[in-house]
């Protein structure tokens, strides 16, 4: 089928992820939404790679996964420490600093 | 190359400032003497400049020219024409008196930390200001001028905000807040002006490609550098705005009364007699030389504003209750005269204006410093708190009166000459404006004499009954100024001789000629 559709899907996924970031409170979920956005990008890469007929896109996808993994490591560490301190993973609770 | 006299004249006080600031906290008096000596040495250098300057020689003399920031097309380019020489001399002359008058103004009351050294700071700052003022008079590179025009604000700011009159009417706390308000107001007004000017400076670079006043002026003159009318006008406005704030010109004047009111008398003198002169000087040197056409285009508006300043300042002076505010508004009125003279575009007007800068410096210094002595005795700035001082302190009153008479430009005292020249110079081109401006001399008499009458005459107020007359130090401050006022009033020729050629040059830059009298002399 037409690979362009995969692009639409990617865009859709990306938007869903972004929306999730905006609407969800739980830090973990927010983070997952970010991951979703990254994966949407991966899909886009692979699709384009297919369309262009060169492998760059696919390789980039691998890089992205690695980066995502690294982000998970760092991100979870931070989120968990926050959770242990406040006994809540709500992003909105962490609003000591404002104005 | 020869000895860099101009650099030395500016560098000496700068170094002096550093040295003074470095004097240990304990030796206050040492710091004072050091500052005084440095200022005197600077005066000596300035006199040397005066002597070495040849009125009939090159337009810019004693020039120095070194590379500085090629990328910005900026050069370290110094040179003085007659106008600059006169003003440098004035500055160097006044600073020693300012220091001497402020001898005790910065003796610390409150105990800060051991390292808190207000006295050293005070005198160091004064010298720093002197250095910057001098070099901005010398600079013939627009950028170089701009830098010090701006940098000048910082020491002034600390002088205004950091040191005020003792025994303030409403206690030290409110005094401090009012002081810092005045200081901030001063800084923001001038900084705003300066930043607008910065835009214009950049614009000038884009238009001209370098900053050398002489080169640009020549290029303008011989047509190699052509500016679009609008460009020139915008640039002019950018420059003029900054100078008008500094001068100050109505309606940008409101920082001056606050500043002069809150600052100690010597600092007030520093502001109005020395620093503000840079503004009027710059109008004459930069606005007119760089943007002759735009200057002529703006002349009517500027003249009207100047006229408003004259009358408005005088009227407000009449309405003041605070001695220093009164003097401040009087100065605003006088700056109106100066600016009017500059933009009258006649040799009388511009010579008068330049002479006025010098004379106004001396006369305000005399009046303000005596007022300062008066205030320091009674611990109040309110006119109503005085009365009958003349009886207890005749010398103080006498000097005060002479200062006042100079302010109302009585013939025989220096300011008369300049004021009359400005009036004539304006009148020859703009009779109506000239006539209205003449009302200023009546109002000047009004506010001066009202001030004198309320403070010095009448029955002796109990609070002033024990007031001591001028001390030796104070007489040493005032007497020379008065002598100078009388001398320049009777024999201004030495100054005019220096000024005239420069003014002729400026006038030719704007392609203007003095109007001819209607009835020519037969011969």
């Amino acid at each position, binding site marked *: 089928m037409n690979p362009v559709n995969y*692009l639409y899907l990617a865009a859709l996924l*990306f938007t869903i992820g972004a929306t999730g*970031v905006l609407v969800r409170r739980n830090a973990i979920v927010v*983070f997952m939404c*970010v991951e979703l*956005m*990254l994966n*949407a*990008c991966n899909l*886009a*890469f692979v*699709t*384009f790679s*297919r*369309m*262009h*007929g060169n492998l*760059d*896109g696919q390789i980039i996808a691998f890089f*992205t996964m690695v*980066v995502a993994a*690294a*982000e998970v490591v*760092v*991100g979870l560490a*931070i989120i968990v*420490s*926050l959770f*242990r*301190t406040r006994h809540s993973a709500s*992003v909105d609770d*962490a609003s*000591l*600093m*404002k104005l | 190359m020869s000895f860099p006299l101009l650099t030395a004249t500016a560098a000496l006080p700068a170094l002096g400032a550093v040295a003074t600031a470095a004097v240990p906290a304990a030796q206050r008096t040492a710091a004072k003497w050091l500052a005084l000596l440095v200022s005197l040495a600077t005066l000596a250098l300035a006199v040397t400049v005066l002597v070495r300057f040849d009125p009939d020689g090159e337009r810019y003399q004693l020039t120095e020219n070194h590379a*500085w*920031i*090629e*990328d910005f097309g900026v050069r370290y380019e110094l040179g003085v024409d007659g106008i600059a020489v006169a003003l440098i001399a004035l500055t160097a002359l006044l600073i020693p008196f300012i220091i001497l008058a402020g001898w005790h103004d910065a003796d610390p009351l*409150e105990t800060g*930390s051991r*390292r*808190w*050294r207000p006295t050293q700071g005070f005198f160091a700052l004064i010298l720093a200001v002197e250095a910057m003022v001098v070099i901005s008079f010398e600079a013939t590179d627009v950028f170089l001028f*701009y*830098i010090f025009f701006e*940098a000048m604000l910082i020491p002034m700011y*600390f002088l205004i*905000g*950091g040191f005020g009159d003792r025994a303030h009417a409403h206690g030290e706390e409110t005094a*401090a807040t009012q*002081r810092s308000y005045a*200081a901030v107001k001063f800084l*923001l007004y001038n*900084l*705003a002006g300066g*930043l607008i000017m910065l835009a214009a400076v*950049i614009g000038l*670079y*884009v238009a001209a490609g370098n900053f050398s006043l002489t080169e640009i002026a020549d290029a303008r003159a011989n047509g190699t550098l052509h500016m679009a009318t609008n460009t020139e006008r915008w640039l002019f406005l950018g420059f003029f705005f900054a100078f008008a704030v500094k001068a100050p010109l109505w309606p940008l004047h409101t920082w001056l009364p606050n500043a002069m009111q809150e600052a100690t008398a010597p600092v007030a003198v520093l502001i109005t007699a020395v620093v503000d002169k840079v503004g009027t000087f710059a109008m004459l040197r930069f606005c007119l030389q760089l943007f002759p056409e735009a200057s002529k285009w703006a002349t009517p508006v500027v003249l009207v504003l100047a006229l408003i300043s004259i009358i408005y300042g005088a009227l407000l002076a009449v309405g003041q209750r605070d001695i220093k505010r009164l003097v401040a508004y009087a100065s605003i009125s006088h700056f109106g005269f100066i600016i009017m003279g500059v933009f009258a575009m006649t040799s009388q007007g511009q010579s008068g204006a330049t002479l006025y800068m010098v004379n106004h410096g001396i006369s305000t210094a005399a009046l303000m410093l005596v007022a300062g002595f008066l205030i320091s005795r009674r611990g109040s700035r309110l006119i109503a708190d005085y009365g009958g001082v003349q009886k207890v302190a005749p010398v103080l009153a006498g000097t005060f009166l002479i200062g006042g008479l100079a302010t109302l430009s009585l013939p025989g005292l220096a300011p008369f000459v300049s004021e009359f020249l400005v009036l004539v110079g304006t009148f020859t081109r703009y009779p109506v404006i000239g006539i209205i401006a003449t009302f200023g001399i009546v109002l000047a008499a009004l506010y001066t004499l009202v001030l004198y009458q309320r403070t010095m005459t009448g029955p002796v107020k109990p609070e002033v009954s024990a007031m001591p007359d001028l001390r030796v130090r104070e007489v040493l401050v005032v007497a020379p100024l008065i002598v100078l006022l009388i001398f320049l009033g009777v024999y201004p020729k030495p100054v005019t001789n220096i000024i005239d050629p420069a003014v002729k040059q400026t006038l030719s830059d704007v392609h203007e000629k003095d109007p001819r009298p209607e009835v020519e002399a037969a011969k």
Partner: protein
Amino acid sequence: MSATAVHSLWTTAAEPITKIDAPKIEYGQLSPTLIVVGAALVGVLIEAFVPRRSRYYAQVFVSVVALCAAFAAVVALAADGFGTTKAHIAAMGAIAVDGPALFLQGTILLAGLVGLFTFAERRLDPAAHGNRVDSFAAQAASVPGSDSEKAAVRAGFTTTEVFPLLLFAIGGMLIFPAANDLLTLFVALEVLSLPLYLLCALARRKRLVSQEAAVKYFLLGAFASAFTLFGIALLYGYAGSVSYARIAQVVDGTVTDVDPALANTMGNDALLLIGGALLVMGLLFKVGAVPFHMWTPDVYQGAPTPVTGFMAAATKVAAFGALLRLLYVVLPGLRWDWRPVMWAVAIVTMLGGAIVAITQTDIKRLLAYSSIAHSGFILAGVIATSKDGVSSVLFYLAGYSFVTIGAFAVVTLVRDAGGEATHLSKWAGLGRRSPLVAAVFAVFLLAFAGIPLTSGFAGKFAVFKAAADGGAVPLVIVGVISSAIAAFFYIRVIVLMFFSEPKPEGPTVAVPSPLTMLAIGLGVATTLVLGIAPQYFLDLAGQAGMFVR
């Protein structure tokens, strides 16, 4: 498109595999980055094997040596002419070695070094149970206020991991402005960001705030990088490659070997424009431009002050470097599309930063907003799209970074019982208590305000001049106005320090170790030198103004 037109991967697989020639890497030219990253790895090993007592010293030693060596390498490369004549693309087109890259790398390394000094400062906090401590949490993992934390403090633990983290971040920053393809750019972005996220969370005092800062920075940062990545994807889709040169060619339409099959995706401007916008947005987030700035105040306030200082300086340098390369090498063909947009961004950034700063009451937040405003000023130079523009930005960044680190270093000195006293009211009358510190801080503030004879003025002038030359006069006017507004709050602080009476229970000024003194001293020195005699450095930046493509 018809299915037949599409390449079949199997068919290619069936063909005999052509030998992939081994990539050739110019290690020498990449040495700065390699040294730093290597040292970071060594740091990790130190954490693993060196006894706790001596870790601090080992780490500091390694880091200092590494940074100095890396800087030496940069200087060597520059001296070797890689900045100018020999500038070229190294590492199979992944990394550019040219003037801007080297200049920025040098700046970043110096900033990193100075930052490192503030990291290593251990005199400010009162010694906990007899062992000196720096401004980082004893044990990041332990819950604030818990027994485990107390135990950790009692045991005199210190988080010496900060040093390798710092080095990693620097490593990322070194690549960021040099990256010559989008993938490298993205990886570098992550490499510099992730350690910073962590560093933000490691404050010794006020840990809740610190952690909150970290979370916000992390989430928003990740969010932003997702956009960046999507932008990269679209650009890849547009050009069929991620290498700058290639994309640039496609944009200019000078590309020769277009496969007709791809014609309809290739050169599809929608992809280009959207992709470019998203990519730029990611970088604008890093430099803290309005409206992507909102993380800045919170993170700056929450993070440990040394980290804030380092971040504020080095990240900005790296990010602006990358932005310059992107706009000048990849998207010059699109100038007429992105310039107006960047104009708008620059204007709102300058004004927004300046205006909001007026009413700030916390010195760190104040400086955060001021840094936003400064991003706006620098953007004005970026927009100039001329050689002057580049060099002016380089110069500005160099001057700005030292002032920033110095200013934050001063902030670390003013302390009361609760650690640093960052609320402005506490700074009242500082000038009376310790004139020297106050004076130094005043110098930094004046530099921020762009008063003549300070580096701030020279930089601002250079940038505005370039902008005006580039025809962005209105931008200059706005810049001037917002500098006036900005001046107002810098002066407010000075008034507070010098003209208001000191409070009896006011903060004390800690006497720092030579490290912090050095940091501050360097700050003052550069401020004045770049202010009074900037010519040499302007030349430097001027020579470095050429991108290789």
